[in-house]
């Protein structure tokens, strides 16, 4: 069974239709890249999968392991294994990163009927992951993302991903605002999470990110639809020739 099946998805925001019948199938173990110009609906797609309020689905469906994802609350989706790495992770003053991580992990475990992780086990797990991502311990004591640099915020997203062990990771413009070194650290963290049970959907404007996270499939999205799909070489073609060639197709 596919992990994620999006069939003919139509989405409106206020009075504007953003997605006009998008179809995408993702199997476990696969890494899909979705590329497209600004305004093509890439971020809308990631938000609708994660369950962000404010979007109206007017047609089509999203199945996650055969279940109707659109009927679930955002936290139910998370507990089922959907993870969105945010393009702009928010700052939450007054909520220590450690408290946040622990609350999130235990909420998901509780929703799945699993036992809460003990404090020593939790601390050990977080510290191990943090050290592989070069996240210093004192950062974990600070408010979530408060005063973090762009690179630190993205690494914090990867930290959460590694801790929560989702089966579907959606990376929304992970490269935005990152220099090459920061990008490399974040991408290494993501690559370490690639596994036969886990799929990834990498949303990006530029081909650059895909040098670090090499996809199995590339989809070109313009004006709310997937207009072309191919292997990783499609990304290079886009880099050379731009999105203009597809504008007419959409």
């Amino acid at each position: 069974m596919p992990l994620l099946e999006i069939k003919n998805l139509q989405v409106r925001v206020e009075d504007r239709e953003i997605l006009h019948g998008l179809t995408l199938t993702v199997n476990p173990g696969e890494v899909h890249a979705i590329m497209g110009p600004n305004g093509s609906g890439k971020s809308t797609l990631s938000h609708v999968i994660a369950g962000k309020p404010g979007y109206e689905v007017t047609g089509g469906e999203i199945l996650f392991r055969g279940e109707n994802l659109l009927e679930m609350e955002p936290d139910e989706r998370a507990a089922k294994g959907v993870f969105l790495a945010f393009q702009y992770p928010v700052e939450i003053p007054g909520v220590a990163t450690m408290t946040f991580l622990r609350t999130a992990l235990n909420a998901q475990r509780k929703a799945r009927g699993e036992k809460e992780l003990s404090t020593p086990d939790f601390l050990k797990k977080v510290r191990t992951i943090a050290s592989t991502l070069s996240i210093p311990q004192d950062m974990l004591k600070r408010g979530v993302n408060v005063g973090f640099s762009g690179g630190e915020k993205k690494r914090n997203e990867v930290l959460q991903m590694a801790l929560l062990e989702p089966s579907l990771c959606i990376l929304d413009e992970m490269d935005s605002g990152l220099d090459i070194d920061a990008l490399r650290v974040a991408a290494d963290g993501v690559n370490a999470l690639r596994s036969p049970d886990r799929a990834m959907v990498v949303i990006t404007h530029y081909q650059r990110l895909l040098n670090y996270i090499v996809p199995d499939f590339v989809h070109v999205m313009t004006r709310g639809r997937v207009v072309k799909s191919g292997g990783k070489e499609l990304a290079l073609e886009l880099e050379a020739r731009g999105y203009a060639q597809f504008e007419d197709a959409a």
Partner: protein
Amino acid sequence: MNLVLTKDETADVLGEEFAQARKRLPGAGKVAQFRQQAFDAFAAAGLPHRRIEDWKYTDLRALMRKVWPLAPAPDDEALSRAASMVEAHAISGARQLVLVDGVFVQTLSDLGGLENGVRIRSLREVLEGKNALLERLLFAPKDQAVVALNAAMMTDGVVIELAEGASLDRPIHLLHVATSRRPVSIFSRSLVEIGQKARATLVESYVSEEANSYQVNDTLLLSVADDARLDHIRLVEESSDASNISSSFVTLGARAHLNAFGLTAGGAVSRYQTAITCAGEGSRIESSGVNLLKGRQHADTTLLLDHAVPHCSSREVFRAVVDDRAHSVFQGRIIVRPKAQKTDARMMTRALLLSDEAEADNKPELEIFADDVTCGHGATAGALDEQLLFYLRARGLSEREAQALLVQAFVGEAIEEIADEALRDIALASAARWLSRRG
């Protein structure tokens, strides 16, 4: 006496109560005379109502429709209920002092091994004796009807004195316990005098069993002498059918330091009004607070900071979290007198509304009569940030869990102002209890 009052009946009903209660109220002669004068002052004004500016948002005539009879002295049954509440609410490591239905109960209090220079007595004992402190206790400002009523009816309380240089080894926890299963009113008054260079930590909490219905009118008179310090927190966790009208009057000497915090999470109607006077140069105040309200609760925090002399600083941080149809009021007035140059006074109040029907009134006021000062205030009100809520929910937190985490962070901004770490933990635990009751 479950009378529904029109505005003219308030004083009449209380007048009958006062007439009946006089015999058992402590103090004769001068004290009795003072009570009568205080009652007359109250009767002339009646309960405060919305046309009195200071009570505009807390109209007691509308909010307190009934006047309950004065609580009887606690009997054995009341004392045994009180004992289990004391056990449930005791703070480990603190010296528990217990008022049951307004009466100081020595058998439930811990008076052993008092530190050098520390004296603790009941209000009754002081009112019935001849004592220099009497002058301090017989206090009823003319424009404060609820304090005048308290002065007339004060039944008991504690009188704590710290001599010059004395310091407490452990905090004092003054526990106000309401036990009556029948509706009653409770009038208590306490006095805390902290001598020069002395240092004290005082925790006050107001507790009851959930079903009890009662009215509390409490007054706290505090003086912190030169170079002395007081850390004070108060927690109002009254039953949901109680009212708590409390007033405190604080005077700070030169270089004295007050770190105060108040949290109101219980009670149907509550008002905490505190007037703090910087009477000695170089004194310093941090006064913060939190209201956590739901259902149809009404809670009012009213602060008056009077900078009478130069070189004093005050800082107020207040947060209100208001759910359902509850109503939170914060009024903060800073007065800087003509002589009070180099005053540094800041006040910031924020309200978080968790429901469309919740209401928060913030009224910060500055009255500045000196020209070389730094003063500022601000007030905001708003809902939880949707972006933050979605981020948390996308990580697996339910809507309630996400709200709880953000509410904790919000009130944490006021709780952080508590200097003493152990007191901060007590306040955090109280906020957590409110959140878990909210579900």
